C-alpha cells in the first residue's frame, strides 16, 4: 500500500495501488455504524427518561416478548438474503398456534406441539414446492397463504383457546438464570442461525443465490433445493414462533395471533441491512434490527407515549435505513 500522494500521480497505478483508506471507504464505514449508534443513543435516552427501562426484569421482558419475532426473523432473514420473501408468516403463525392450542387442550402438550410444527412445516413445504421447485412468484403464493391461513384459523376456532396444560404454560412463564425459557429457546435458534450463515457452506450458497442465481446454478449449487429448504425452515420457524407465543400468552386467539408479524419481521430484517433483493446480509445485524424495534416499542410504552408514535417512528426509521442502503451501494460501486 502507498501513501495518498503517490496514488494520485499515475492513473494506471491507482487501479491496483490505492491509499490505505479513501474518503468513500471512510464514509462507508461510518454508515455501517449508524444503526448500532442509533440503538445505543435510543437506549441511553430511554435510560435517562425512565427509571424502569434499564432494569433486568424489563430487559428480560423485552426478550421474552420478542422470542417469537427472533425465531422467525433469523430464518426469514436467510430467505431474504437468497432473494425470496414470505408474506404468510403472520397468518401461518395464527393457524399453527390455533391448531396447536386446539389439540393441546384435547390431547395434551405433545400432540399440540407436533400439530403446530406439522402445520408450519406443511405450509413451508407448500411454499417451497410452488416457489422453489415450480418457480411461482413468491409474493403471489405467500400472499395467498397470508389470506387463506387466517381464514382457516378462524374457521377451526372462532373463539380464543385457553386452558393449556400446566407444563406448557410453564414454558411461557418459567425462567432459568433470569431469562424465560422461551427466551433461551429463541437465543439458541438465533445462535444456530448465526453459525449456519457464518460457518457453513449452506450459508455461502444462500448468499450466492441472492447475488446471481444463474451463476450459482452453473457452478453446481442446487438452487431449487436450497430455496425449497429455506421455505421449509421458514415454515418450521413460524411454527416454533407460534408455540412460543401461545405459551407466553397462555391462550391462542385465532383472530389476532401473529397478525402483523410479516411486517415486523420484514422491517427487522431490512433494518438489519439485508437488501430486499438479497445477496448480502449479516445475522448479527439482523438481530440488532430486531432489538432496535423491540426496544423502541418498550421504551415508548414506558414513557407513556401514544402507541401510534411507535409506528410512525418505526416506519420512518425503515425508510431512512433504506436511504442509507442506497448510499452504501452507490459508494461500494465507486470504490
Amino acid at each position, binding site marked *: 500500500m502507498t501513501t495518498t500522494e503517490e496514488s494520485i500521480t499515475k*492513473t*494506471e497505478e491507482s*487501479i*491496483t495501488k490505492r491509499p490505505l483508506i479513501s474518503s468513500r471507504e471512510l464514509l462507508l464505514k461510518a454508515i455501517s455504524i449508524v444503526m448500532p449508534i442509533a440503538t445505543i443513543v435510543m437506549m441511553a435516552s430511554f435510560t435517562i427518561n425512565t427509571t424502569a427501562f434499564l432494569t433486568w426484569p424489563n430487559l428480560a421482558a423485552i426478550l421474552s416478548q420478542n422470542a417469537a419475532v427472533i425465531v422467525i426473523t433469523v430464518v426469514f432473514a436467510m430467505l431474504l438474503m437468497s432473494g425470496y420473501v414470505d408474506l404468510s408468516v403472520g397468518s401461518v403463525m395464527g393457524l399453527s398456534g390455533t391448531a396447536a392450542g386446539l389439540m393441546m387442550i384435547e390431547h395434551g402438550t405433545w400432540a399440540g406441539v407436533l400439530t403446530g410444527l406439522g402445520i408450519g412445516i406443511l405450509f413451508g413445504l407448500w411454499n417451497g414446492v410452488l416457489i422453489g421447485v415450480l418457480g411461482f412468484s413468491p409474493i403471489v403464493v405467500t400472499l395467498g397463504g397470508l389470506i387463506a391461513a387466517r381464514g382457516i384459523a378462524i374457521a377451526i376456532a372462532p373463539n380464543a383457546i385457553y386452558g393449556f396444560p400446566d407444563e406448557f404454560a410453564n414454558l411461557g412463564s418459567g425462567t432459568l438464570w433470569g431469562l424465560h425459557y422461551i427466551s433461551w429457546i429463541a437465543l439458541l435458534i438465533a445462535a444456530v442461525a448465526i453459525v449456519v450463515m457464518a*460457518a*457453513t*457452506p449452506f*450459508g*455461502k*450458497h444462500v*448468499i*450466492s443465490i441472492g*447475488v*446471481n442465481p*444463474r*451463476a*450459482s*446454478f*452453473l*457452478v*453446481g*449449487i*442446487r438452487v431449487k433445493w436450497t430455496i425449497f429448504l429455506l421455505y421449509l425452515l421458514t415454515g418450521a420457524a413460524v411454527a416454533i414462533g407460534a408455540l412460543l407465543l401461545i405459551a407466553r400468552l397462555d391462550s391462542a386467539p385465532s383472530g389476532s395471533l401473529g397478525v402483523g408479524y410479516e411486517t415486523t419481521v420484514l422491517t427487522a430484517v431490512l433494518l438489519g441491512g439485508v437488501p430486499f433483493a438479497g*445477496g*448480502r446480509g449479516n445475522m448479527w445485524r439482523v438481530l440488532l434490527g430486531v432489538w432496535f424495534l423491540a426496544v423502541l416499542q418498550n421504551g415508548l410504552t414506558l414513557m407513556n407515549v401514544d402507541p401510534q408514535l411507535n409506528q410512525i417512528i418505526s416506519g420512518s426509521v425503515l425508510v431512512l435505513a433504506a436511504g442509507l442502503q442506497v448510499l452504501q451501494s452507490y459508494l*461500494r*460501486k465507486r*470504490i
Partner: protein
Amino acid sequence: MSDTIQIIDLRKSYGSVEVLKGVDLEFHPGEVHALLGANGAGKSTLLGCLSGAIHPTSGEIRIDEQVFHGFTPREAFEAGTSIIYQHFQLASALSVSDNVFLGDELKTRWGFTRKRTQSRITAEVLGRIGLEFGPNEIVEDLSVGEQQGIEIARSMRREPKLLILDEPTAALGKHEVAALLALVKRLAHEVGIAVVFVTHLLPEVLAVADRVSILRGGQVLWTRAIAEVTTADMIHGISPDAADVHAQGQRSIGSALVTLESFETSFCGPLELELNEGEIVGVFGMLGSGRSNLLETIAGARRRWHGSLAIEGKELSYASTAGAMAAGVALVASDRPKQSLFADLTAIENLLMPHYQAISPWWRSPMNERRVFDQIASDVNLQPPVAAATATSFSGGNAQKLVVGRWLAGLRDINLLLLDEPTQGVDIGSRAQIYNLLRRFTEEAPKRAVLFSTSDPDEAVALADRIVVLIDGRITDVVAPSVGEAQLLSLAQSVEVSHGVEHQR
C-alpha cells in the same frame, strides 16, 4: 455531397488504453454501409460514440454542417442518428403503435395520448417501409422478424439521417433474414437515408451493402465499394494471420476419453464427437450456430437431450449441473457478469463457491479456504491476489481467471472442462495466460480434456488442437488449427443466406 455524415479522427481511450485510434469514416445517404471487424476492433465503442452511450475523447462527427464532439443519447437522436441493437427493446404486451411512440407519445392539451393519430402515423410509416402488419397489432403476437420491423419503424418515424443496425440478423430465422435485408435495401435506396450495417456474416454483406469498411485495432483499415471487394478480402481484413498466442511445442494427445454419440440438444445435433485424453477441442461457430446450447447441454444446464455421453466408456445420464460436476464435467459459461461472476462477492468467495462443501462438508474451515485460495491465485497469477477484493474490482482478464480458476483448483476431479467463449472481454496478455492455464490443465493430470466454443477465429486457431465447425447446430467440418483463420471464417459461413435473398422477391 453536403448531407454526407462524416466522422473525423474519432478517438476514445480508457485510462491508458486507446480503443479508438483515430477513426475516419463517411456515410452517404442512399447507401448501405457495412461495418466489419473482429471482437475488440472497436466496433461497439464506435457505435457507442454515434448513439451517445459513450463520449469520445476527441474527434468530431459532422451531420448537416453541424459539428459535434460527442453526444448525449438525446443529442444523438436530435442530430438524426438512430441505432437498433441486436436485442430488441420492445414492450411486448403493447401494440405496434404504442411501441413506435414509446417515450415520445403524442399528447392532447390535457395530457392524454392521441391514440388515433399515433395509429395513423404508424400505419403511414409501416406502409412507407413496406411492412405488412397493422399498427394496432400486439407485439408479442408478431414474429421475431416483424418485431425487428417495429424497431426499424420506431427509428424511421423520427426520420433519421443515419440508421445503424447492430447485428440485426442475429435473432432471425432464414426467411426473415432475407426479408430484413430487402427492407434495409429499400430504406437506403428508396427512402434515401444512410444505413450502417454491422455484422459478422459476410454473405449478408455481399447481399446488402453498397460500401464496406473494415475496422481493425481501433482504426479503419480500408473502405471500398462493394464491387471492388471479395469475401477473401474481407476475411483477410478482419483477421490477418497475426495470432501471437499460438501453442508452443508439440502436445501429446492420448486415446479417446469423451464420446458423444448421436447427441441431440434442443437445438443441436444429432452429432458425433470424440475428445481424446489431453486434447483441447474448439467448437467454432457464428452467433446462432448453437455453440452455447451445445456446451450448456453437455454441462447439464439444459435438460433435453438424446443420444449418449460417455467418459472413459462410462455412460453419463445426469440432468443437472450438480450431477454433471459429480460426473466430472464443469462449465465456464459465457457472459461473465450474468452467468459466472458473483459481482458483489469477494475473490475468495468467487473462486471457492462450487467447492465449499468439498473443502469441508459441514463446518467451513477458513484456514483451509485461505490456503486453497492462495494456491489458485498464484497458479493463475491473479492480479491483485487479494482474497477480500470484490469481483467487480478486477479487470476482465483477472475476473475471467477467477471463474476459470474455479475448476483448476483440483478440488474436484474434472475430466471434461467446458468453456463458452473463454476469453470474452479479456485483454491480450491475460488471454495468453488463460490459454496456458488450460493447456497445463490437460497436461498436469491424466484423463482430462477441454472443449471450448468461440466465435473468434484467432482464438480457435491459437488454443485448439482440433477445431469443429458448427453451423445451425450441426458439425460441418473438423479441421486442424493449421487451416488458418481465414479458411476457418469461410467454413463457418452459412451459404444459404445469400441464396435466400435472391430467391425472395
